[in-house]
């Protein structure tokens, strides 16, 4: 291909292309191993568009066409249309509120007939482009809070909309835009504060408000007591401690309960709580008592289902052992024990069939593609390309890390896909576009794009 179409192939980073292709192939094999039964005729079902692996295969073919097309586009188009495409993305997300179709509890899908499109998924591309565009503008001074605020707004607007649709998993992905921002000079203080806030949020969800308020008070008093000399010397330290204490207390005591009681709808609150694995303590007790037991049962069933998923996922992976059971020989995979195995839990089939060495190899493959992207990023002349590359790396990393953490039981169940491996046109196409735009931009790395 590269010989004949040398104009396309020129400057293209083939390492990336190969890594991409290998991962998609592995994905196809995994989906195949999930669905294949010894009685199936392979070729017929591969071309039949009935089985998931067959569909994924056609999605892949479509992606090849799409990738070629992207490689033919002039890089300048991406910078030029970045803001426009971002707007389009937002409009599409808003559109789902009107014509959205509900799949698996979130009304974030637009039915297209042959497939269902999830705009939040696509919006990752547009957001990456828009963020890159904004950060690469000469008038942007990223050391100023104003610019930082705008960048944050660009990044998190789709996430907020997505949460409103009930698709929390994908919304979390937008946190990964903090990484390119950090690379571009966002003070680490923000990230540390952000991380601290996240921890605060999680513990405020995990523990009761009363416990936390007492705990904060105790910690603050103890801190002041042990540092009483320094506190005496500088009032600012005392002020800081008091401010932090006050903030934490207000956050836990007022903000969180208020948000969960009045801003979120009960089911959204429940969903967020179920993410950390506790029952919603802010739910209206009377409402629960009055609501019919069916609903409670339903809720219980959902938690049970999630626990079941993780348990089955761990069994499948754990039973693979060091060497794995061999391709198509996984009893857990073949027995349909792991729910959603072809999508969010596709990693289990790798774990079971290929064992520890296979899983580790896959992790290394992902790590190589991510590090390769970082390498590409650092060799760009234009800020646009660099920021964009970091966006891609961060998104990929976030997906991989969270997805695998879920399957091995290190994180609560968050429904996000394993890039390039999971079944699903929406996800595959998104990542193909993300990666090939990067490859396209990298091919023009000598150019300065604005």
């Amino acid at each position: 291909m590269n010989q004949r179409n040398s104009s396309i192939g020129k400057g293209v980073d083939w390492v990336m292309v190969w890594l991409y292709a290998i991962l998609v192939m592995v994905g196809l094999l995994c989906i195949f191993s999930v669905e294949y039964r010894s009685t199936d005729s392979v070729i017929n079902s591969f071309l039949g568009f009935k089985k998931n692996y067959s569909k994924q295969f056609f999605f892949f073919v479509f992606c090849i066409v799409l990738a070629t097309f992207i490689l033919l586009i002039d890089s300048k188009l991406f910078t030029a249309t970045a803001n426009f495409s971002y707007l389009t993305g937002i409009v599409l997300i808003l559109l789902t509120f009107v014509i959205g179709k509900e799949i698996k509890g979130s009304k974030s899908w637009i039915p297209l007939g042959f497939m269902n499109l999830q705009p939040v998924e696509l919006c990752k591309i547009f957001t990456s482009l828009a963020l890159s565009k904004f950060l690469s503008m000469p008038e942007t001074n990223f050391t100023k809070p104003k610019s930082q605020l705008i960048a944050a707004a660009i990044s998190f607007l789709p996430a907020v909309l997505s949460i409103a649709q009930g698709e929390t998993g994908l919304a979390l992905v937008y946190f990964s835009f903090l990484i390119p921002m950090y690379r571009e000079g966002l003070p680490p203080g923000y990230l540390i504060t952000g991380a601290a806030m996240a921890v605060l949020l999680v513990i405020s969800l995990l523990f009761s408000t009363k416990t936390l308020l007492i705990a904060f008070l105790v910690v603050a008093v103890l801190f002041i007591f042990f540092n009483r000399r320094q506190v005496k010397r500088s009032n600012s330290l005392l002020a800081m401690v008091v401010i932090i204490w006050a903030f934490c207390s207000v956050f836990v005591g007022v903000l969180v309960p208020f948000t969960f009681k009045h801003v979120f709808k009960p089911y959204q609150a429940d969903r967020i709580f179920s993410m950390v694995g506790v029952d919603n303590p802010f739910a209206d007790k009377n409402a629960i008592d009055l609501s019919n037991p069916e609903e409670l049962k339903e809720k219980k069933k959902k938690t049970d289902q999630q626990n079941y998923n993780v348990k089955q996922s761990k069994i499948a992976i754990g039973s693979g052992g060091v060497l794995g059971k061999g391709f198509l020989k996984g009893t857990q995979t073949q027995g349909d024990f792991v729910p959603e195995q072809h999508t969010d839990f596709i990693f289990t089939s790798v774990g079971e069939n290929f064992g520890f060495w296979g899983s580790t190899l896959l992790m290394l493959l992902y790590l190589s593609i991510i590090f390769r992207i970082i390498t590409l990023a650092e060799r760009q002349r234009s800020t646009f390309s660099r920021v964009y590359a970091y966006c891609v790396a961060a998104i990929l990393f976030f997906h991989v890390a969270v997805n695998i953490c879920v399957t091995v039981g290190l994180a609560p169940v968050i429904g996000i896909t394993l890039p390039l491996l999971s079944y699903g046109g929406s996800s595959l196409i998104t990542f193909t576009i993300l990666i090939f735009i990067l490859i396209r931009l990298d091919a023009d790395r000598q150019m300065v794009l604005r």
Partner: protein
Amino acid sequence: MSVFNQSRKSVIQLVFGGIFVVIILQLANLQVFSSKYKVMADDQGKFRKVVYPDRGIVYDRKKKAILQNQTIYDLMVVPNKVRGVDTASLCRILGIDTAVFNKRIVELIIKNGRARPSTFDALLSDEKMAMLNEGMYKFVPGFYLQERPVRSYPIDAGGNILGYLSEVDTNFLKAHKGEGYQIGDYAGKTGLERTYEKVLMGQRGIEYWKRDNKNRLTERFENGQYDTAAIAGDNMHLSLDIALQEFGETLMQNKVGAVVAIDPRTGGVLAMISSPTFKPKYLTGADRKKHYAELLLNPALPLLNRTVNAKYAPGSTFKTLQGLIGLHEGVITPSTPFSCSGAFYGCGKPMRCLDPGVWSLKGAITHSCNTYFANVMQRVINNPKYPNLDSSLNQWARYMHAFGLGHRLGIDVPTERSGSIPNAATYDKIYGDGHWNFCTFRSVSIGQGEVETTPLQVANEMAYLANKGWFITPHMVDSIEGGDKFGLMDKFKEKHQPLEISDSVFEAVHDGMQGVMDGGTGRFAQVPGIVVCGKTGTVENAYGGVKQKDHAFFAAFAPRDNPQIAIAVICENAGFGSTSAAPIASLMIEKYLRDSIAGPERKAKVEQIANLNLIPPRIYKELRRMDSIRHVKDSIYQASKGYIKIVKDSMGLDADDEADAMDKVKNRKDAKKETPVKDSTPVKPKTKIEAVLPDNKVKPEATDTTKIPEV
């Protein structure tokens, strides 16, 4: 610009790498260091399916299959595929209404889930099966028929010999650890099915299957690479003549007793009838539980195999052996005369004798002279050759043991009892050391008192006499196809020749026995054209302290010069030995030697004997009492369930069997023992001879199942 913050690249890479390392560590934890997930995965994803081989087929001596395998069908249902099935016509075929249908489906869903096949109707009858098969297209895919192999008994005879299969219990599993039995397996419970379990069972196969999340078996694991194939059980050939067995069962109907016929040349059992008996197919298939309860509660004890598991005083049939011992010890010669003037006066108080006169051995046997044999045994016991009574009595007991009495012969039908032959220790125990002499147990000389034999032992005794001095341990199984791999039949090849006794001695005894048939007490056992040697016996007995009508005994072998059959017949409480037991033996001999009964007169005899009702009246009394109990206690079924439990609890397959268990149940009810009473000897208080029949039918008590005694 890109120079700025370039160091942050490394920080980012470090964070990425760090998190990946954490994930890989967790993977190592799950996949390398933890084994519990493998176990869990095997538990849910793999299924070890035991493949049962066909059990061996059992043939009789004429190569007729008498115990074989039959396939019947279960109707299976997969609840989640029932929608759209023609329920109405299915219900019509099964004879149930739609409400029952729905109820059953719901029950099955609760039990087995929606996606797994469950048994909707087990063990379909032939007509149901035919109708279902025809209309099956209307019921697929929700319903299908599944084969199930069961044991079948083509000929309705030999229930006590062949035995049946039943589900193994915990005791059995404990006793047969490492032999591959699992809960839910079937194993031979009684009879030959039990003795030859190893042979008939064959070798189980194991298939590994993959199982899916709905617990359905999907496909073979690794294409059956780890499977082992099942090997069918070996077929067995019996020495039993099923036609003779059937004939004997007909003759014995409406009687309580037993018949054992042996081929003296081989020791092979030709027929073994215990009456009342049961149809073997009663204890296989769907109604097993119901039938079992009925049989267990029947006061006539049909489950008791009287041929080996009941003990009777041998009565006069014992005299032949007494004669042999006397001759062998040299205390008499065949011509030694003893005179009988109407009673035996050797011990002061006279022992009555029916045939006054002067008899030598032949005449004494022919006329069953009590006095003669009392004298013979007295001489044996008081023989000056021995220093004291102890040693002479023990010597006598050793002879009896050598003749196969007083110990288990080792036949391959389970639950054999040893019977008993008294020795010095026996009497020391009853009367105190040395406080006894011949007169104390003189009734033993005529086969009453402390002597107890099983019908099998008596038949074997006849075989011994017929062979003039040897016998082969009686056995059912003649040969096993593919060889006797477990050495189960080794003891049946051995010839027992305990004593060197000259043929002339036997001739004398045979003369006497032939005399019995010609003009003595056994005239009714004559077989036209065949020289039969026989001996009648009339056994006095008491039940619950009340003297009962005598047991009729008859033992014989035929033909005299080329013995082919040795037979023992006992009819409980039938009166004089010659009127019931003797004709039965005679007809059996004729049937076996001639293959049929010749002449209208003999055929009429068959008819007459078959219709003769000799069931003791007390059994009818019991039955009536049970009926009235049934009215009082609303649920006899509950009671029977309780008793089955008692029996099961106390039974353990390797302890004894149902009969023992029943004894235990009986003991609990302080059954009065059957004590032999003899004409002149007072009932000895310390002698306890185990009852053949329980006096008191166990009372069904529905609520009493918890009070099971430690047995």
